[in-house]
């Protein structure tokens, strides 16, 4: 008899808990805008903040809320086109007030001049700089997004931003935008 009471009470308790959770999952459902994720994937993830937002995802959220799509210099022309395709907007020129489109670059620290102040480490949005106080710092080239943010804080100006040399690994076929994207269409009635 006792075992039946025990089973009943535990079952009842579990049912109440389950019902509570089920109710909560409907009542407190959070709407996640799926378009934000899609926009975020098209952005270059440099986290450079040139668009005026603290990172790529906040900019993606702003675009989803109707901000202009031409405020991302690292994404450049190609990025604007991809965004325009996704959102069915017109392709517009890059907003010059945010910065110019530049070729892919990577930060390099002149290590014998580095005094180990850690200021660039704090500035790096992607944690691509390793080092500790009063020890030499260096850049993990594969993590660096070339965003420039570590250059101004350096008190001894020992950070260079050279262009990435084109090798067989990072060479891309140039976008044939004059032959493919702008075929003139003749209306034949």
């Amino acid at each position, binding site marked *: 008899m006792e075992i039946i009471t025990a089973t009943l*009470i535990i079952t009842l*308790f579990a049912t109440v*808990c389950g019902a509570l959770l089920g109710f*909560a999952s409907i009542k*407190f459902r959070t709407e996640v805008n799926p378009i934000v994720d899609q926009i975020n994937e098209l952005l270059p993830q440099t986290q450079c903040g040139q668009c005026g937002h603290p990172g790529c995802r906040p900019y993606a959220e702003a675009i989803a809320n109707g901000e202009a799509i031409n405020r991302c210099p690292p994404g450049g022309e190609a990025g604007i086109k991809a965004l325009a395709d996704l959102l069915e907007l017109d392709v517009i020129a890059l907003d010059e007030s945010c910065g110019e489109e530049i070729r892919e670059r990577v930060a390099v620290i002149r290590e014998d001049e580095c005094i180990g102040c850690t200021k660039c480490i704090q500035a790096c949005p992607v944690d691509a700089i390793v080092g500790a106080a009063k020890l030499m710092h260096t850049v993990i080239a594969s993590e660096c997004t070339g965003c420039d943010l570590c250059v101004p804080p350096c008190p001894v100006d020992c950070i260079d931003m050279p262009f990435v040399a084109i090798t067989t690994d990072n060479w891309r076929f140039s976008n044939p935008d004059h032959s493919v994207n702008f075929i003139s269409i003749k209306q034949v009635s």
Partner: protein
Amino acid sequence: MTDILLLLVSTVLVNNFVLVKFLGLCPFMGVSSRVETATGMAAATTFVLTMASLASYLINHFILEPFGLEYLQVISFILAIAVVVQFTEMVIHKTSPMLYRLLGIFLPLITTNCAVLGVALLNVNKGHNFIESIVYGFGAASGFSLVLILFAAIRERIAVADVPKPFQGAAISLITAGLMSLAFMGFTGLVKL
């Protein structure tokens, strides 16, 4: 009032959950490599432990004891804690995205922490009343937070220190934890309950 205060101090310092009772050691070793994650974990634990001791007291007092089902404590406490944590996670996700991002993945992780179940069971063993249960849970969590953040800060320093090769990695962390435990033994006798 003095009793409550003494209970709080004794749980935080004298009977510290991590360094004296050796409960909740997995998050103590696992998420203590950076101070920021340790702080997030500490906040989540404080929240969950307080909620857990509250919920388990209510369950024990109003469901298990009237029916003489004390032997079902473990399973019903686990169930109640999991439900409370999941429920609050949903509510926080809806009402405060900022807090949700701060506590993040730590909330569901902490549900299966042995310190959480430990608090619930110890509350019953010690025969704490409603207020004492909550204070005990909060005190345990504060003690956990204190040593977790201290330990994370030490480990950040150790990460850049010149540690002899045989001691590198987990070895030096465990030695550090042992030394901290020894140091906390100094609090014994601070409070007599």
